[in-house]
C-alpha cells in the first residue's frame, strides 16, 4: 500500500485483470537486427508489455500479458515488428 493511501481497498499490482497473454490471436515478433531502439512502440503499447533491453536499448515483448493488438507493429518507423499468427 502506498504511504498516502488512507483507504485500503485495492492495492496496485500486476495482473489484476488476469494473465492476458492468452487473448492473443497474433503475436508481435521483434526483429532485433532491424530495430533502431527509437522506443515508439514502448510509448504507444497500451499494455506496457514492450520492455526495453538495457544492454542494447532495443526492445522485447512480455508475452505473459501482450494482447496482440498490433499497435507496436503499426507505429514502428522501420517495420521491425511483424505480427504472426498464433495458430
Amino acid at each position, binding site marked *: *500500500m*502506498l504511504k*498516502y*493511501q488512507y*483507504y485500503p*481497498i*485495492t*492495492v*496496485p*499490482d*500486476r*495482473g*489484476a*485483470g*488476469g*494473465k*492476458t497473454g492468452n*487473448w492473443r490471436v497474433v503475436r508481435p515478433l521483434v526483429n532485433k537486427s532491424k530495430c533502431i531502439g527509437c522506443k515508439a512502440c514502448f*510509448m*504507444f*503499447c*497500451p*499494455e*506496457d*508489455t514492450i520492455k526495453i533491453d538495457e544492454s542494447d536499448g532495443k526492445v522485447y515483448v*512480455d508475452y*505473459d*500479458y501482450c*494482447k*496482440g*493488438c*498490433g*499497435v507496436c*507493429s*503499426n*507505429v514502428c518507423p522501420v517495420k521491425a515488428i511483424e*505480427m504472426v499468427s498464433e495458430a
Partner: protein
Amino acid sequence: MSGTSACPGCPENMAMRMLGMGLGKDIALIVVAGCSSVIQGLAPKNSYNYPVVNIAFAAGPATASGMARAYKARNRNVVPVVWAGDGGTADIGFASLSGAAERNEDIIYVVVDNEAYMNTGGHKSGSTPLGAYTLTTPEGKKQNKKNLPFIMIEHNIPYVATASVGYPHDYIEKLRKAKQISGFRYIHVLTPDPYGWMFDPSRTAEVAKLAVQTCYWPLFEYENGKLKISDESLHCLDKRTRRPLRDFLSVQGRFKRITEEEVKMLENYIDSLWEKLMKLYENQS
C-alpha cells in the same frame, strides 16, 4: 501496469500509461464509472500504479474536492486526479464538474474522450460528433459535438488543455505543466476507440494522429487567459494546409454511411471551431 482487462489496442490504457509518465508520484485517482472502472481489474488488486477511488458518474469532482482538502489538512502534497470519460463529463457529471471549476478546487480533471458511452456498448453521448453511428443513433448523429474545452475556458480556470494519444510528448508535457499549477486544471484527451469507431485495433495511434492532422481535434493550451496553439496543430490556422477531413472519416466504420451533406456540415463545424480559436488568439496579442 500489465494485466489489465482492457480490450486490445485500448486508447484509454495508452492515455493512462502516459498519465503515469507525465504526473509521476503522489497522485490519487478518482475514477468515475466508465471503461476504466473495469480496466483496472479485480479487487483487492488494481492494475494502475496509483490508489484509486471508484465512484459514481456525478460524484467525481466533488469527491476530488474533498480529498484535496483532506490531503491539505494532513499536510500531504498529493494531487487528486479525476479520470472520467466523455459521458461522465459532457452529460452526467457536468454539474459537479462545473461546480468544482467555479470554486477553483485544487485538482486535475482528465477527460478521456472516445466520443460515446463505449463501456455499455457504444451509446451516443454529448461528445459524439455529427454523422457518427452509435447504437442509439443508427442513422448517424444529427447534432454536433459539445465543445467541452471551450465551455471550460469560459469557467476562467487556470489551465485548460487538449491532447491526443497520437502525440504522447505533447500530452505528457501538458500533464507536467498542469502539475506545477495550482487550482482547477482541465485536460481533454482524444482517445480513438477501435471498437466504437470501428477500425482495426492496431491503428489506434494512427487514427489519433489523423484527428489532429485533419484539424478535427485542435491541440491547444489555455493558461491564465492566454491561448497557445500547440505545434502539432499550427498548420490548421491556414485552411490550405489542413489535411482533408475525408482521410480521417474514411478509416472509421462509424462514418461509413455519412452523407455528402453531413460531411459539409462537419467541415463547417470544424471551420467555426478554428475561427473561434483564432479570434481568441488575436484578441490577446
